[in-house]
């Protein structure tokens, strides 16, 4: 008989119920706390970025178009004198992308299950 997804052996059932009890009693809070602490850490780092952006002692200017070294790059006699998205920009600063879906299709054909 082919085993269905939810058919559990006695061993697996005991393991699953044991784990479920354990998590229900003790694990949930710890799991929740650890998620909260990570988000917290990310939030603190994000806030630090916005503080630096708004701090004139660190960044005198806050708009890319006002950066003197960006103006120098795009100046009439500058390195990218055609301006943004000009010919030279396209050669150096723009790119093209390649379809990589065949690798994913090949994996799925082999029977690999992915989340997407």
């Amino acid at each position: 008989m082919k085993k269905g997804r939810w058919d559990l052996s006695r061993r697996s059932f005991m393991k699953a119920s044991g784990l479920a009890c354990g998590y229900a009693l003790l694990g949930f809070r710890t799991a929740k706390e650890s998620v909260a602490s990570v988000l917290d850490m990310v939030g603190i780092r994000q806030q630090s970025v916005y503080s630096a952006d708004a701090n004139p002692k660190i960044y005198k200017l806050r708009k890319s178009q006002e950066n003197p070294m960006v103006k120098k790059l795009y100046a009439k006699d500058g390195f990218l004198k055609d301006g943004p998205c000009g010919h030279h920009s396209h050669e150096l600063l723009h790119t093209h992308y390649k379809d990589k879906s065949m690798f994913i299709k090949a994996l799925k054909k082999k029977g690999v299950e992915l989340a997407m």
Partner: protein
Amino acid sequence: MSEAIKKKPELGSIKVDPSGTVQKTEGVNYTIYSPRVNDLGNLYFVEVDSNVCEGCGECETHCPTGAIQETKDGTRSIVDPAACMNCGQCLTHCPYGAVTERVSYVSEVFEKLKDPDTVVVTMTAPAVRYALGECFGTPVGTYTGGKMQAALRRLGFDYIWDNEWTADVTIMEEGTELLERVKHGGKGDKPLPQFTSCCPGWIKFCESFYPDLIPHLSTCKSPVGMLGPLAKTYGAEQTGVDPKKIYTVSIMPCIAKKYEGLRPEMHASGQRDIDATINTRELAYMIKKAGINYMALPDEEPDPVLGMATGAATIFGTSGGVMEAALRLAYEVISGKTLADPSIIAVRTANGINKVDVDVPGFGPVHIAVVSGLDNAAKVCEEVRAGTSNLHFIEVMTCPGGCVNGGGQPVDPSIMEASVFKKMVAKVNKRFNMRKIA
């Protein structure tokens, strides 16, 4: 600037680990290995050490594509490099430090720094300076940008160039591209909405799972994708250095940037644009190995020509930042007016999908979305694919919260201190699976 080849500091005494050595760096195991472009094919950037893995499955819950899966003995493993977007969220969330990095250029970078004939230049990402201090004992998120630049100089880098400068350049390029797409009504080969293209995890994701949306991706390279070729052309011209002698080191809060640096198309300068990529943890390792007292360093500036930056550039390091920086340009170009307050707080995003209409005089509402996490990106991609989206511009970051939470950043110490209970469950689990009767 004429004395291009400056005196190198005393790095001679530093013993460099040979290729293949496993080096513990800020709590993470790295294999010393400097791959080249031809090695990219089947290269793993992260992999699970099955001897350390306890099979708790925490990594699986952070893997957006489901690439990290259970093996027969209950440990986890990445099924195939093609399925892995290299974001490293599995690594930063593993309570046991079992997820390892398989690419590390630190030895090669040390060798190049020692070599008097190589001009080694830095290309440091915004988010690095908000987390590097943590490796030297500062509170989480402390900005130490000035010390970071000073440390890079002490390490013997010849020019301190910075991706914040090219983040400003990216805004000029990507903002102009967006305005062109809007002007043409999103017709033809330049459709709307436009997706940002700074995040290498997202780019690989789009190419792998939503290739039909490739025309929506901005054709702009990421800031480091721009600084590499500019360093070897414009930078060489400005400093009078032979471009062949320049060795560019991308310093990132990220693991996926190692993949980006190896992309075959990254040779716009006529050579490899990005010679090496290291991340925040590896930079901390190098500073410690060189015996530099980081916290005692003065604040220094990058070398301005390819280093000076604005606040619009530094916010690239957080979810919503690229969007905010682009709007600071687009608003002024479209309306012809000055944007009085550059802070566009509505687009700042901690996680999830944040859709906002930004009113621009002379245009009306600009519909934007900021997306954090690839599971959320997939939802927005489905909308765009179905044609039900009215959006103009979408920012996607693979790591929740953006680059400050990247896979190459210092790991939260509290994650490593998994609870005794969880450890016990994992141990039981592992034993159980290993004793399974066939």
